[in-house]
């Protein structure tokens, strides 16, 4: 019997704001423990939550990018639970009236066909504190407590690991390019919980669902789900019922591992947050949040592809928002987008990878890279341009023109008659090399080409020289 997987995702995104969701405490990643907390974050009696405007703007932007209905009244609710990760004894969230509902994201399925994944809701809430667990004690760092979050809940319409991975990738692109979040799964600023169950094809009822928590990379989402689907299939085929449980993905073994078996659903006794009255957002406020949203990934990609970049090239540049930003700055001085993209993807990326640094640490200003690529458009060879680039990377204060002159690099002359006369001259002067070549020494032609390049002082194209040399030597 074949089974259909039913997958739903809950994605928590930490918002990139200056202050926290309900307090004015700084909101930054990786500061030393318990140095970014205010009395509210630690639930001192009498402290009151005040909603962060930028967090609301960010949530509206994401909701709009996901084609959601946006609620113009913001309401918060209490999710009550007793645990050390939130000292108030409750989390402030939006249970009853999420800021956005009924949206969708289009992804490519396994056959690269467009598929719409409907999204139930997006709501704002506060993050919990970070807990470190040891053998017989736990440590609490409240820096993360109160960090603004949006939670995006999909409908259970995802059918395999590839679709899940592409869905999360699509969400990540939206939150990163709207400047809502860093979207760094490995640092926990985008966290993903997956619910997966299996049912025989044609059956409408859902099977027993298993939750896989905190998967920390796109690749792991695909792997975890493919493993889990295979595991549940094998169980069902052997007549073993799947039990409702929470699992985690073990990267080393590529398997999901049982964390705990779920018993009764926890009753969080949600009720409207009495310390935050409903907040009315004007139409202008909502529209302005949407209108001022930075250009999103898909729009940039369409623009890049329209200007001549391949799909893959556009994806490579857009895979890092800082790379995309560098590309756009360089475009101001570059004549041709495609040439610039090639330099960025091959030469610049090669330089960065070799040194293990990011584009933010690349020594050359983007405008100069743009100017450099123009040399190629003006007739300099790729190799000449790369030589100038390498020199500029050593001397980044020089202008492109100064670097070119310092390296003594001149534009190639496109003159077949000149090439022919120089080749003829070189052949006449080196009869021994001709004899060596005819005798089977292939390297002799390299020497002859070198002689021509020397005579031309590097101004002729080596490819032209090679072509003419091969033709002429055969005539001897």
């Amino acid at each position, binding site marked *: 019997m074949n089974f259909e997987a039913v997958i739903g995702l809950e994605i928590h995104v930490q918002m990139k704001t200056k202050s926290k969701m309900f307090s004015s405490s700084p909101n930054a990643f990786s500061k030393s*423990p318990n140095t970014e907390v205010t009395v509210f974050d630690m639930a001192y009696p009498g402290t009151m939550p005040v909603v962060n405007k930028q967090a609301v703007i960010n949530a509206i932007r994401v909701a709009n990018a996901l084609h959601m209905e946006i609620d113009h009244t913001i309401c918060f609710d209490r999710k009550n639970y007793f645990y050390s990760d939130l000292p108030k004894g409750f989390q402030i969230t939006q249970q009853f009236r999420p800021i956005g509902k009924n949206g969708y994201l289009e992804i490519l399925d396994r056959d690269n066909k467009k598929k719409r994944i409907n999204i139930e809701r997006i709501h704002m809430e506060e993050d919990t504190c970070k807990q470190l667990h040891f053998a017989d004690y*736990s440590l609490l760092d409240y820096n993360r407590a109160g960090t603004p979050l949006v939670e995006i809940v999909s409908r259970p319409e995802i059918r395999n690991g590839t679709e899940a991975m592409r869905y999360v990738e699509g969400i990540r692109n939206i939150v990163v390019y709207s400047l809502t979040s860093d979207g760094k799964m490995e640092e926990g600023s985008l966290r993903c919980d997956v619910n997966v169950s299996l049912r025989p094809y044609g059956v409408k009822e859902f099977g027993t669902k298993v939750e896989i928590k905190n998967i920390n990379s796109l690749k792991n989402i695909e792997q975890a789900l493919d493993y889990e689907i295979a595991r549940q299939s094998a169980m069902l085929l052997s007549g073993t019922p799947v039990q409702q449980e929470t699992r985690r993905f073990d990267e080393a073994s590529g398997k999901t591992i049982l964390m705990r078996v779920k018993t009764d659903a926890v009753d969080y006794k949600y009720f409207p947050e009495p310390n935050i*009255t409903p*907040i009315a957002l004007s139409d202008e406020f909502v529209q302005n949040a949407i209108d001022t949203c930075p250009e999103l990934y898909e729009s940039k990609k369409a623009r890049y592809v329209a200007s001549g970049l391949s799909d893959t090239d556009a994806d490579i540049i857009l895979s890092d928002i800082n790379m995309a930003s560098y590309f756009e700055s360089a475009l101001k001085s570059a004549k041709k987008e495609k040439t610039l993209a090639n330099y960025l993807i091959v030469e610049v990326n090669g330089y960065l990878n070799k040194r293990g640094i990011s584009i933010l640490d690349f020594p050359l200003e983007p405008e100069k890279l743009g100017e450099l690529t123009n040399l190629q458009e003006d007739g300099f060879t790729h190799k000449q341009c790369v030589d100038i680039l390498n020199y500029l990377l050593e001397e980044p204060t020089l202008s492109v023109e100064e670097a070119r002159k310092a390296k003594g690099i001149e534009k190639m002359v496109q003159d077949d008659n000149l090439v022919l006369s120089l080749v003829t001259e070189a052949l006449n002067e080196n009869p021994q090399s001709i004899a060596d070549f005819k005798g089977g020494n292939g390297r002799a032609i390299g020497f002859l080409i070198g002689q021509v390049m020397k005579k031309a002082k590097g101004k002729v194209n080596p490819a032209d020289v090679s072509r003419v040399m091969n033709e002429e030597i055969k005539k001897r």
Partner: protein
Amino acid sequence: MKEINLDVLHDAAHRLLFDMSDEEYQTLLEEFGILTKQMELIGKIEGLENYPPMTFPFPCEVDYLREDVATEPLSREEALSNAGSVLDGEIKIPKVVG
């Protein structure tokens, strides 16, 4: 509405990790009895079902949102001053997961 009896109160106290004397449980039960009667009185108001549940006694919608400006946080010493036990700048508690 769920009936509030001694079993419910014992269970709630157990979940909240505290206990009381029998006398205190009795007092609490009586107080809940008064509250329940009052709620029943309100429930008898005619046409109540035509109103959505209210969190606040009167409409009090606002339009205020805080500007996203960070202020000086507590010093770590202040933040941790009420912690029973501290290790490496973090609050140390008994292990809370199995």
